[in-house]
């Protein structure tokens, strides 16, 4: 069988065909709201973030200190054993300079880019990374392997969320001269 011998289905429309009502369509917005329970391990993680601390969970069989913390070790398939505090510093494992929002719209010229990064947290086992954003940094000077430190919200403003850390900033060098314009964050 050759594809060229068949009349293929799929009738292409343009957005304007829909906007102008050239074909019948139905618009609908689902009204769904969620309240996701934090659970045991993440509940404590968020509580400690509110205290300005990063906490991990250790499995005494494989010895891994895991972040985000979890009540069971997915490798040893057993309950984890103890809580371990980590430092609020780490290393950039990889990063991106993001020019678009989730809906594919562009971040307007002059507004800060989103600077997502995977950060390996000091005190957790090697390779244990979390997703966060970088800030107070010149985007062109971000490097993989760069040491970074958490920048916390003021104690009274923390609410037990990953965003209690506003962003991670470079420990030294690569810092922005002017602190007026912040990159990263939301």
């Amino acid at each position, binding site marked *: *069988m*050759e*594809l*060229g011998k*068949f009349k*293929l*289905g*799929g*009738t*292409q*429309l*343009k*957005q304007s*065909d*829909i906007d102008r009502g050239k*074909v019948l369509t139905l618009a*609908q917005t*689902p009204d769904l709201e*969620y309240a*996701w329970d*934090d*659970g045991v391990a*993440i509940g404590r*993680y*968020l509580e400690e973030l509110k205290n300005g601390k990063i906490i991990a969970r250790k499995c005494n069989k494989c010895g891994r200190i*895991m972040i*985000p913390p979890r009540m069971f070790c*997915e490798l040893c398939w057993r309950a984890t054993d103890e809580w371990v505090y980590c430092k609020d510093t780490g290393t950039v*494992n*990889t*990063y*991106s*300079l*993001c*020019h*678009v*929002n*989730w*809906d*594919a*719209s562009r971040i307007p010229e002059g507004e800060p880019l*989103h600077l*997502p*990064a*995977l950060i390996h947290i000091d005190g957790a086992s090697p*390779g*244990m*990374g*979390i*997703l*966060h*954003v970088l800030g107070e940094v010149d985007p062109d000077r971000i490097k*993989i392997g760069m040491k970074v430190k958490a920048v916390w919200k003021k104690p009274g403003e923390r609410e037990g*969320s*990953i*965003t209690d850390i506003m962003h991670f900033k470079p420990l030294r060098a690569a810092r922005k001269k002017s602190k007026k314009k912040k990159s990263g964050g*939301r």
Partner: protein
Amino acid sequence: MSQKVAIVGAGITKFVRRAQETGKELAWQASKMALDSCGLSLKDIDSVSLGTAPDAFDGVHMKGEYLSDGSGGWRKPYMRQFVGGGTGVFAPIHGWMHVASGMFDTCLVVCSEKMSTCYPHPQGAFLTIFDHTTEQALDPTLIWIFALEYNRYMETYGLTKRDIAPVSVKNKKNAMDHPSAQLPMDITVDDVLNSELLAWPVNRLDISPASDGAAAIVLAGEHAAKRITDKPVWIDGVGWNLDTAYWATRDLSYPRYVEKAARMAYDMAGIKEPRREIEIAEPYDPFTYKELHHMEGLLLADRGEAPQLLADGVTQRDGDRPMCPSGGALGVGNPISATGLMKVIEIFLQLRGEAEKRQVPGNPTCGLAQAWGDLMQVGTVVVMRR
């Protein structure tokens, strides 16, 4: 295993950004073509395996049930498969199980997707793939994780964007010969590098589009296959594997789960030296770097060496090891599950010598299709021989 399984027929729609047809109408168009292509009718089909991506794309919950009439599932043993982007190769693996087990002699495998329903952009439906408590608050987008993986891949092997961009040039060019193609283009590496920067290092032309489309194949057991066609293409190996759900703790430079899936399929197919025995492949290419990343995971290139094979022309259609001769997700389009099945169909046509202008030289006898998905953690692989 009680019987060998062959692909005996195939069907596909055009891949377009926005189709008028409903998902079930697209599914029927592809399925009907698959049956017509091998002279069967729906009553010859014993079971149906449907693959389709998140319900949130189409805005239809229980999409498996919704698509069942267009997929030939009426009063038949019918089952839906879903592993995100890996679904398009997972659905035929399931179909293979249905037939290989001896339970059924034939299985219709259908993949259909209608992403255009979702506004402002199907990415909105992806926001909840991130952990709701520890990641969603950061307002992550799907493109972040690919940009992060792409960057880490380059860093680990000292690569540049110029080493990776030719994947887009090759695949979009290949797609010019595919009648379903949504984004066939004749472009240069500079066009890719100068296209709109979305999230460094990812530019517009590094990414496959959102698409509507469907694909289908007919599977048959050994005896049935020989009755139906004199050109069966045998599924000799299948493999699938899933990595940790904690994506941020994974080694992003190497897809170990793809390697494990590939090894499972190679062992089943008796393949000892994949680089010599796999003559043609369709690795999953939703982003440029993923084709290279997956070639390495599939053991078709050493770690970090795939870009050199690309530069040397090895992966071109007339090269020693053609990759994505169809045009891939980058060129033909990416209606998630239908993309993976499109890749299976391409290898089916290539091994039968029926790929028209896309035909690779040298009468290949053994090929592979692979897809990848979930939170970039699942690998699905099918090895085929004629």
